[in-house]
Structures are given as C-alpha cells and as structure tokens.
C-alpha cells in the first residue's frame, strides 16, 4: 500500500479496495516500527489521524468525499496546527501548542487529507543537513549514517521511507529541493506568494515559501492544487488565478527550450553528480527539448547575498521570542534584560544564534549600507540575470545540489562549507521564482536530483516536464532497501 502514488491511493479509496482508517493505520504502523531509524517525526498525531480518517470514510460513504479525502500527509513542524505541538525544531517552542491553524494545513484539512504528524526540521528552518534540530538529527533512509538534507529533511525522509505518501515543506534557500534531491523524492518550491505563509513560523519573510514534497511530479501537482491560492490573511500572498496543476502534465516537450547555466556545471560540482545530471538532460533532449548553454553570472553572489538578507530578516522575525508571552523562559530572571538574554541564549541553538548575530550586525548602524543595502542591490542583479535568461529559454536546468548527502557531522564545524550546499537553489529564492527537483539517478550510491527553474507562476510547466521525465525513467520508483 505504501508504495502507491497519490493517484493510486485515491483510486484505491474510491474503489473500496481499502478504507481511510486502514490506510492511515498502515502508515501509523510503519511510523511506529520504522521511524526510530530515521527520526523523521517530532510528533505523531495518531488519535487525531484516526479520528480524521473515520470522518473521511463517513464522507465517502455519504458520497461527499473529495479527490484526496482520506489520504494521509505529514506536515513540517513549521506549520502551526491547532492543538498540536508546533516546535519549529527548537527548544524555544518545545512547549508551544499552536492556538490556530496555518492556512496551508487548514486547506489540507478541508480537502480531507489526514495529518499523520509533524516532521523533523533544522531549528527554525536554518540549516542544510537537519542536524540543528532540538529533537536530534534526522537520518537519510538511503544511508542512515548520512544527512537527509535540510531544512525539510524530516518531510523528505518520511516520504522517501514511505512513512507518508506526501508531505509539506518550506523553502527559504533550497529547503524543499535540497532534501528532496538527497532523499530521491520530488519537491516543488512555488513562486513567492503562490502559497500562503500565514501560520508558517517565519524565518526570512521575503524568501520563505511553502510547497509540496511527494514521490512524483503528478502527486506534487495534486498537492499543490490543495495548497495554492490567494490568502487575504497573508499580505504577501499573490492575487493570481490558480490553475489545475494536473491539467498540463502530459503536454509534449517538443521545442521546449532548456537553458543550462555554465556556472552550474563548473568547479565545485561533484563529478558523479554532474554525470547523472547530464544524462537526465539527454533524456529531455530525446523527448524533443532544445538544449542551450546560458550564463547566470551572478550565481556566485547568491550565497553571500542570502547570508545577509536571510539573517537580517531572521533577526527581526526571531525577536518575538523573548521569554515573555510564550515559548521557553529561563529560570529566575534577575531583570528584564536578563530575562531576554538568557531565555534566548538557552532557548536557541548555535546555528540560530549565529544567524541572529549576523543579521543584527548587518543591520547595525554603520554597516547597513555596506551589507544590507548592497545585498538587496545584488538581489536585483540576480533577478535581472534570470529575466535575461528567460528571454532566451523557457526553463533552466541543472543540479539541485553540488553533492549527494554527506556523512553526519562532516560539515557541522564549518558553517560556510555547509552554506555552499545551497549554491544552486538560493538564487531562485532571492528572485522569487518557482523550481522543482526530480529524482535523476544515483551518484556513488546516493540519490541525485535534477532541478528545473521556471519563470514566475510557471509551476504547471515545471510539473509537466517533471512528469514527462518520470514517465520515461524509473528513478522516482526506487525505494531504500530497509523501507521497501
């Protein structure tokens, strides 16, 4: 049952092959017996899930079920879920029971999806390896000694280990695509503003975007149909019509112009990863796509620009965690300043503290122009670079990450080395563009993802290319042996 895609599960429920309670129990049993290996979940909401499943079965019996009614899903622990712990991977929110539901999870609930639980993540979504979670590192189902990627590593591992058929993730600098690539699943980061950020714990507000994580592009399209749309509660949500993202999946690729940025295939890209990506591009060419070399000359500036803008926004967003109203509070504060400093010093982990300090520094008097303003100017250069590229090509293709998943602990002592894991994903967030990663093969035994970047609101085209690629290949069907 757990190797079925979303479309197959919907069919199984529709035909009565199994009920939602049976399906949900199957996944809950798998989580119980297998999750100690991956640590993909922070919270499992068994009772809640079974109650939702019963309700879904009743709706189906009454002829009122929707397309996805009764199918389980795992939510990244960054989404507020009413009455359920929402920790954001942090000690700071270890005791936080959200009093309201995020728009994304609300939409999932309304469509009849069953919440299995909340998945592990880097603390406050800051990280590329899922090692900074207060709840311990999450493990890659393909090699338990390796990282699953971050920060949506728990969601990626849960789908890869078939502990959930689909999951939600968020992507600030590559946090959906990079773990999806490292765990052999499909992940889509939509255009900035396509999916509501309301009720999603903010990291860097001008970069954060929620999106689907799934086994296939078709499944991701079905989940995006649920998630996307204008939300008046989020003032950055875009008022653009939502299309049916499954409608164009089977369009042919003849004449599609695909740009390969030479900077994405230069030094720094692992040779085995490069070979896998080149082979995957050949497959798209075989289907009629026209391949063209392009240049994105600002690529090397994206990581430095990101590590000014994201920490600056994070330092402002995380100032709300002061130990006063909710969240972690230190023992016996001596005065107000002591309360703030010790609550924050004890409640936040090292990576979060590093980023808050970089942000505070970049925004401080005397450094604002040199760092923050400069980074925002570079951000426009990056956006312009993409705009020029899209005058020549329809989509841009390349690797999702420069390496496959690395060993735990390998990069924790050197944050800058870790930051470079996101070099191919970060510029997409700075420009606000949509991008997808699809399983493209294995390099030295570990999964590798092909990334496709589209122009604004071109999610359907990316899903279409991903789907056509998956119809011609079977990389996405491969599952880690001990989770088969």
């Amino acid at each position, binding site marked *: 049952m757990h190797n079925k895609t979303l479309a197959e599960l919907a069919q199984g429920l529709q035909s009565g092959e199994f009920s939602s309670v049976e399906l949900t129990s199957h996944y809950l049993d798998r989580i119980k017996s297998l999750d100690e290996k991956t640590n993909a979940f922070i919270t499992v909401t068994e009772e809640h899930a079974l109650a939702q499943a019963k309700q879904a079965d009743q709706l189906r019996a009454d002829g009122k079920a929707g397309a996805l009614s009764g199918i389980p899903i795992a939510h990244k622990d960054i989404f507020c879920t009413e009455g359920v712990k929402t920790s954001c991977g942090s000690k700071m929110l270890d005791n*936080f*029971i*959200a*009093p*309201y539901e995020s728009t994304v999870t609300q939409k999932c609930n309304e469509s009849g999806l069953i919440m299995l639980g909340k998945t592990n993540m880097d603390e406050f979504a800051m990280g590329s390896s899922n090692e900074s979670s207060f709840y311990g590192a999450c493990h890659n189902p393909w090699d338990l000694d390796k990282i699953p990627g971050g920060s949506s590593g728990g969601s990626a591992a849960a789908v890869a280990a078939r502990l959930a058929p689909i999951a939600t993730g968020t992507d600030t600098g590559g946090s959906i695509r990079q773990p999806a690539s490292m765990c052999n699943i499909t992940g889509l980061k939509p*255009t*900035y*503003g396509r999916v509501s950020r309301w009720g999603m714990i903010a990291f860097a507000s*001008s*970069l954060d975007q929620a999106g689907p994580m799934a086994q296939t592009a078709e499944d991701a399209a079905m989940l995006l149909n649920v998630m996307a749309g204008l939300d*008046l509660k989020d*003032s*950055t949500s*875009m*008022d653009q019509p939502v299309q049916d993202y499954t409608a164009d999946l089977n369009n042919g690729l003849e004449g599609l112009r695909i740009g390969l940025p030479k900077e994405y295939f230069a030094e720094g890209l692992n040779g085995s990863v490069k070979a896998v990506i080149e082979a995957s591009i050949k497959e798209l060419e075989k289907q009629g796509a026209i391949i063209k070399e392009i240049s994105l000359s600002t690529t*090397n*500036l994206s990581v*430095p620009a990101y*590590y*000014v803008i994201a920490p600056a926004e994070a*330092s402002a967003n995380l*100032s709300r965690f002061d130990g006063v*109203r*909710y969240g972690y*509070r230190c023992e016996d*504060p001596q*005065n*107000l*300043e002591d*309360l703030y*400093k010790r609550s*924050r*010093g004890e409640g*936040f982990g*090292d990576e979060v503290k*590093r980023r*808050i*300090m*970089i942000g*505070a*520094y970049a925004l*401080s008097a005397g450094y604002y122009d*040199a760092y923050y303003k*400069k*980074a*925002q*100017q*570079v*951000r*426009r*250069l990056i*956006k312009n670079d993409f705009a020029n590229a899209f005058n020549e090509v329809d989509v841009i293709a390349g690797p999702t990450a420069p390496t496959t998943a690395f060993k735990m602990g390998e990069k924790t002592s050197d944050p*800058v080395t870790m*930051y470079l894991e996101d070099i191919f994903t970060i510029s997409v*967030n*700075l*420009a*606000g*563009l949509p991008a997808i990663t699809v399983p493209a093969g294995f390099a030295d035994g570990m999964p590798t993802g092909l990334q496709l970047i589209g122009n*604004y609101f071109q999610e359907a085209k990316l899903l279409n290319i991903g789907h056509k690629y998956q119809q011609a290949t079977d990389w996405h069907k491969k599952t880690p042996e001990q989770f088969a």
Partner: protein
Amino acid sequence: MSIDHDQVAKIAELARLNIEPAQMDQYAENLSSILDLVDQLQAADTDGIDPLANPLDAVQRLRPDQVTETNQREHFQKNAPSADKGLFLVPKVIE
C-alpha cells in the same frame, strides 16, 4: 573581516543573546568566516541599482480599516505560561 571577542559581545548585546564565555572563540571564528563569505558582495558593481526588497517588486496589499477578527483573547492566552483576568502574567522585572 575578522571579528574579535569584544565585537561578538557587542553583537550579542544588540541581539539580546546570552553567549557563554567558553563559546566566544567558536562564535568569533564562525562569524568571521561568514563575514568573509559575505564580503564577496563588495566585488559586485551595483552603481545605480535599486535595492530589491520583495522578489516580485510587489507592494503591500491594503484592506479597508475595519475589524474583521473576533475576540479570542481567552483562546490565545491558554498557551501562555501564566495569565489572569485577560492579562499575561510575566516575571516581575521592574522594581
């Protein structure tokens, strides 16, 4: 750009973060290497380029100035460490 202990202490003060003295070396080293990375920005020619704050160049959407939310004070205070008569109770911090 190299950051020393005093500067780490100053930034931590600005950010209202308590940093243990034993961790100062590690923070100084890490923050210095991050600032070295960030300094690569200085090589970019940004003369006459407008800063970009929103990736879509969008402006804040406004709504009529009308109350749309219902009062859920009790519900929202349920999760507070301590609340009484509709108020958050916090540790005494002013003598």
